[in-house]
């Protein structure tokens, strides 16, 4: 069970949250003009990182806010959580695997 630090409520148990996939996926500016391949990339393709991954979570059973989390996909350590729209923080601490 993960303890996820909600930027608004503080550390809470994983069962209060829902997962939202990779963070910082920007919608292409001119979606009518881009190729199908670029659009498919935006809609379907996500990184499959071994290491620190920036991902979205929503505090579904708590404050219902979306936010971002930096989580190590091997050790499951959560290195940071920050508000949606904010830049990811500098992560000095990187676990060696």
């Amino acid at each position, binding site marked *: 069970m993960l303890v996820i630090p909600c930027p608004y409520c*503080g550390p809470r148990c994983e069962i*209060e949250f829902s997962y939202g996939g990779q963070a910082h996926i920007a919608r292409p500016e001119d979606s009518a003009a881009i190729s199908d391949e670029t659009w498919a990339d935006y809609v379907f393709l996500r990184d499959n990182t071994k290491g620190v991954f920036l991902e979205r979570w929503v505090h579904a059973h708590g404050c219902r806010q979306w936010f971002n989390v930096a989580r190590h996909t091997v050790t499951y350590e959560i290195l940071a959580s920050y508000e949606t729209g904010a830049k990811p923080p500098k992560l000095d601490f990187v676990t060696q695997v």
Partner: protein
Amino acid sequence: MIERYLRQSPLAHLGLSGRGQDDGAPAQVRLAERPFSGLVNLRGPGADQTFLDAFEAAAEYALPTAAGASSVGGNTTALWLGPREWAIVDARGEPDAGPRIASRLRAALAGFPAAVTDISESRACIQISGAKARATLQKGCPLDLHPRAFRQGQCAQTRLAKASVLIHLTADESAQGGLAFDVYVARSFAEYVWFWLEDAACEYGANAKL
């Protein structure tokens, strides 16, 4: 609002008022439905001081802005649900409390990007009190309910036996009537949560308080 004489509280069908009265045996957990609590959901710009001031001018108490905080003014309590969301509660069981709070807030907050929604009918309010109330809730709730971590006046939205609930510690161990929580749960989950609480409290000696 529906005709008052047709209105039923979410746990009315359990016939709690028809149960055997408290026999005086030492019960460490007491359960009660608080029917017809007024409950209004308020959403608005929590970082905008003019919005907070407008609420305070109308309600004569301040909206809580710290996570899990509540504030009391007269017969209503404002519970922090999120950075832009609150619950305004009047748990005295006056049937018109919800619409009355809602219309007052709507008038006071007109012009703000805010939403005032009377959700009284959609929730059940279950009061759980007694010395073992914390221990009973803790069986199905991941929140830290230890007296050091969860104090009088604090509230939190979390899960209880998998149901989504809002828990409010209305009185702690030092209060005159002893420890008491209000647990708000969606109406359709009310019976499930009530029976779960009865079962969880069984080992401590439970009584339905009327």
